[in-house]
């Protein structure tokens, strides 16, 4: 398709992309700049900090705000990893059945996944809050992992089914004809073909759980609070200082790993996000 783009259009498109890239990066650069400013220069409105200060990072990683930020970071990592693992494993079985087997109810499962994904999550908060308080799951990691399955399972099922449908499954039989045992055929042929899809699904699923705020602030109070919720309740070094710098630093710390994942796996993430949504 690129071949018929004229040189003039080409240059023009290249120029247009510059403001787009700036627009996309400015808010992130601003929060990065704030995180590196000292308290005195926080309000100078300048994009490049006059002098680099690591005070904000010190505050959240080793200083007074450590007790608030580090446990939240640990909670986020544990809760999101477990939720991702459970939902990808469950989705793998379901997607395999959907992609390979012919059984009644296939449509029902996919429609249910669709319905669950458009469900307004806040509607789950009230009943879960009431129930979790009654059975002692309030403010626990498990109490967050369970509702996160509602966020992540439909997405995992869709994305994985789309990936699994593209796998040439007949290669498995071909390998068996060539003398491989069914386990060998599975491990040497199917696993390498399926793992990129599983991996991509895991990344997208993880992003979704990592992003959650509604459940995190509603179903936790201190012990199981994750980063997005902790950020919203950050306080300054003392009662009288604004937590702006600390919030900015914490935001950068949780954003960097995600940006690295995006840079590394850009193409796969795009194909995963769009695979279920458009025929192709």
């Amino acid at each position, binding site marked *: 398709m690129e071949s018929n783009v004229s040189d003039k259009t080409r240059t023009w498109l*290249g120029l247009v992309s510059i403001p787009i890239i700036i627009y996309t990066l400015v808010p992130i650069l601003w929060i990065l700049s704030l995180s590196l400013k000292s308290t005195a220069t926080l309000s100078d409105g300048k994009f490049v900090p006059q002098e680099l200060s690591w005070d904000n990072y010190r505050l959240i990683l080793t200083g007074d705000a450590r007790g608030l930020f580090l446990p939240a970071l640990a909670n986020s990592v544990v809760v999101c990893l477990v939720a991702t693992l459970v939902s990808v494993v*469950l989705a793998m079985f379901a997607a395999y059945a959907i992609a390979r087997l012919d059984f009644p109810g296939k449509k029902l499962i996919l429609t249910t996944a669709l319905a669950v994904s458009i469900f307004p999550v806040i509607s789950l908060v009230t009943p879960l809050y*009431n129930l979790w308080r009654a059975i002692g799951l309030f403010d626990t990691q498990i109490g967050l992992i369970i509702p996160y399955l509602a966020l992540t399972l439909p997405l995992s099922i869709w994305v994985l089914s789309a990936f699994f449908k593209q796998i040439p499954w007949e290669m498995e039989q071909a390998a068996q004809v060539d003398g491989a045992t069914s386990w060998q055929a599975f491990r040497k042929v199917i696993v390498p073909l399926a793992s990129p899809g599983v991996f991509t699904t895991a990344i997208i699923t993880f992003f979704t759980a990592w992003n959650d705020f509604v459940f995190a602030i509603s179903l936790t109070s201190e012990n199981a609070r994750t980063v997005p919720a902790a950020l919203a309740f950050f306080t300054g070094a003392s009662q009288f200082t604004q937590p702006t710098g600390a919030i900015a630093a914490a935001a950068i710390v949780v954003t960097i790993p995600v940006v690295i994942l995006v840079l590394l796996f850009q193409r796969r993430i*795009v194909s995963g996000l769009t695979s279920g*949504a458009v025929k192709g």
Partner: protein
Amino acid sequence: MAERKLGWKLAGPAFAVMLAVTAYPILNAVWLSLYDYRLTDPSARKFVFLNNYAVVLTDGLWWGAVLTTVVITVVTVVVELVIGMALAMIMNKIVVPRRILRTVVLIPYAIITVVSAFAWRFAFAVDTGFLNHWLHTLSFGAFSETYDWFGSHWSALIAICISEIWKTTPFMSLLLLAGLAQVPSSLEEAAEVDGATFWQRLFKVVLPNMKGAIMVALLFRTLDAFRIFDAVFVMTGGAQDTSTVSLVAYNQTISRVEIGMGSAVSVLLFLIVVGISVVFIKGFKVDLSSVRGE
């Protein structure tokens, strides 16, 4: 027969978990919404039938929140469709810097919504912001450097919408880009040979051929926008009458521990979302079979 059994054995657990974490709570919410029930005073719990709904539906606060949510939804989805479509068309044709652009555009999608909301809150703020300085310079001093965006209803809504648009346009543009890739380029070329202008080609050839992708993108974004919570919570906390429906449900349940009233709001929000879906699927004939991966 064996295949049917195996199919359900493999897909059953995922299906059961999905139902357990959504169908059960929403049915429970319907039940709880029929009671006058405050968590701090469980003994006073009593059956009031539809009274909670009557209270909510006659309250100005609820209708104000509905209006705010509708405004945010319509504004963000329309703007996102236009920007997202432009972005998709540029990403579709661009040669250099193709990969960089496609990667950078993904970044807002991957950023936590709360972080994006803070970034924009800090950017708009009078003290820690930069937008006021820029606007002041660009307007040759006509725009006041101390303008308080969060000090009035409409300016606060604009700030919320901008943060939401920045965060979710990438997702929209990716869905549209996938749709755009399905439009046969020969059609567009033929129209160009026949002397059609850019806009004629866009409205007569490109858009009609990717109608399915556009409708699916609109449905997803509309439902998502209607649930808006994070950005409002972080940027205004509902001040200046910027509370959305989700924020009202949260406040009833978590801040006031009015479980009965909170459940009624939750059920109403659920019904609205179902209503929007029905309008899209039946009214606009959105074909979801492609979404279900059939």
